[in-house]
């Protein structure tokens, strides 16, 4: 006979005497469950069962559930076990637990996998593209409305955003672009000097920084720094029904929240691109001077020859488009945040990933475009 701490089973002929002992509470639930299952498995077909629970010092929902399971395991085989020695309070608890256990349970929440997941992802991507298009339309129409009635433009809000995404981003942008300018120049000198072509480093740094890297680095930086902030802000405003509050007061959230943010970004990004490009040229020039023995005046005169205004213009033309893309994606993702904290996180991630992806794709398209118009 298995003798254990919580249950003892005495078998006399064909009848069973089960006795409970000790604490039938949550801490001992795992052990009790094992014993209950074992007792039921060991004696599948007794003629008569008596469960004596006078030895139990305490019982909670866990104990009551397992007692119910023990009783059920025999009663489903056609025997009705007698339960004795249960105090009135635990009787109520047992009754309460029995009420819940018999009810039909809902199916597990459906989780997509395999082919279904692929299909749904494809559909979701399609819907994403449509949503972006729809949102672009909504923003443009809000912009037109603002243009027709300039007094409704939220100038204060735009300036506040400009401060956050523009001015406060200056130090980190300066540092990053300066360092990248240094690194490009150093690598260029290192490899070009073996051909004796050190001086062409200046051309490389100039073209690369002004045409591509300045705008690209600043865009990626702002997508991470400000795009994520936009998404999180708008998302939490949606979760707390602030958007709905605006709407019922007769304001269009796109006009109040989205337009100033996007305009701030469109103003800030070209300015930051300019500052960043200058910092990168400074970094490149310094490395050329210190590491490559190209004196500053030589660097500058070579730069004048290598670069025409075109290179600079190409970089600057791209900047507002990048800004608009980042702003649109970030605000759209913010507006799509659902009810849960998880969705806020997922949308913020999506916002940054999509914005960076789109910025790089657009940079590629711009490269083709400018090449075909010989710029």
């Amino acid at each position, binding site marked *: 006979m298995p003798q254990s701490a919580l249950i003892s089973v005495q078998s006399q002929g064909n009848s069973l005497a089960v006795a409970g002992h000790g604490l039938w509470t949550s801490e001992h639930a795992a052990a009790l469950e094992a014993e209950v299952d074992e007792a039921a498995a060991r004696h599948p077909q007794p003629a008569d069962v008596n469960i004596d629970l006078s030895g139990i010092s305490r019982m909670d929902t866990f104990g009551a559930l*397992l007692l119910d399971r023990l009783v059920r395991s025999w009663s489903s085989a056609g025997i009705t076990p007698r339960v004795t020695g249960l105090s009135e309070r635990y009787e109520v608890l047992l009754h309460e637990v029995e009420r819940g256990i018999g009810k039909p349970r809902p199916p597990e929440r459906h989780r997509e996998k395999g082919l279904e997941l692929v299909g749904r992802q494809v559909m979701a991507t399609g819907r994403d593209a449509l949503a972006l298009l729809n949102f672009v339309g909504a923003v443009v129409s809000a912009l037109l409305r603002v243009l027709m009635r300039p007094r409704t433009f939220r100038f204060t809000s735009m300036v506040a955003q400009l401060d956050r995404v523009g001015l406060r981003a200056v130090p980190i942008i300066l540092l990053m672009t300066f360092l990248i300018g240094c690194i490009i120049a150093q690598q260029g000198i290192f490899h070009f000097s073996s051909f004796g072509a050190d001086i062409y480093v200046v051309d490389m740094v100039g073209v690369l920084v002004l045409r591509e890297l300045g705008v690209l680095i600043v865009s990626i930086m702002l997508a991470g720094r400000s795009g994520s902030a936009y998404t999180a802000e708008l998302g939490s405003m949606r979760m707390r029904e602030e958007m709905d509050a605006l709407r019922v007061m007769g304001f269009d959230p796109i006009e109040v929240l989205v337009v100033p943010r996007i305009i701030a970004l469109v103003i800030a990004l070209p300015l930051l691109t300019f500052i960043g490009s200058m910092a990168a040229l400074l970094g490149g020039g310094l490395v050329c001077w210190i590491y490559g023995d190209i004196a500053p005046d030589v660097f500058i005169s070579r730069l004048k020859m290598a670069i025409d205004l075109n290179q600079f213009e190409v970089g600057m033309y791209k900047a507002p488009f990048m800004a608009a893309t980042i702003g649109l994606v970030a605000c759209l993702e913010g507006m799509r945040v659902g009810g849960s904290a998880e969705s806020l996180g997922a949308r913020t991630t999506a916002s940054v990933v999509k914005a960076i992806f789109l910025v790089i794709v657009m940079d590629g398209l711009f490269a083709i475009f400018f090449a075909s118009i010989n710029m």
Partner: protein
Amino acid sequence: MDAQSLSPTQSSARQDREVVIRVRDIVVGFGDKIILDHLNLDIFRGEILGFVGASGGGKSVLTRTILGLLPKRSGVVEVFGQNLDDLNELQRSALERRWGVLFQQGALFSSLTVKQNIQFPLREHLRLSQRLMDDIAFAKIEMVGLKPDVAEKLPSELSGGMIKRAALARSLALDPEILFLDEPTSGLDPIGAGEFDELIRTLQQTLGLTVFMVTHDLDSLHSVCDRIAALGDGKVIAQGTIEDMMAAQHPWLRAYFHGSRARAVQVGRGAG
């Protein structure tokens, strides 16, 4: 300082009852603002204590201080006779299993279904089979009066009343001995609030709970609370039964229990 308990006979009658939470000389403040000023409070086993006080008066601060969510400047909180400051991490975690908290907004984990929410403390504290955890979850869902199909829903798919009930089910997951309720009936319609009061009463009796309930709901105070403590100026200004509160002379208590809303409750009760 004064009027800590209303009459000496009452306090002597209580002496045989076990004190599960003993708060002594608690001081809590933010900056130079003192919220709780040498506050004393006892909570006895098996009672439902209603805790009232003006908005912003520090009711939630006391709850959060007892739970250890806010630091106190001085004073002692004893739970089950153990000083919370003397416990190491393991003892503290064991103690925390013996209380459950229903936050005002439910505080359900928004990325988990109701069933997963209820099973979360079980999964962390106990090693149980999935079958038993499912049984527990559905038993608790039934206990708080929800339908079984709520189990697979996310909190964002539930109504306010359902969120409260689901959160109550989660706070009961480990069969705690003490239940903290922070304004359990706020945001519920009167019928829903009445049902919730009833539910708390039933659960308290079935599970043998001790309930500490911060509330503003005069109906709750009348119908479910065994004892009421009132907070004023950072101290407990009065404690006793609802009748004691009605008879109290403190101006704030008179305003609270004899204001127009209080009268409406009484009239309703008298007529019913």
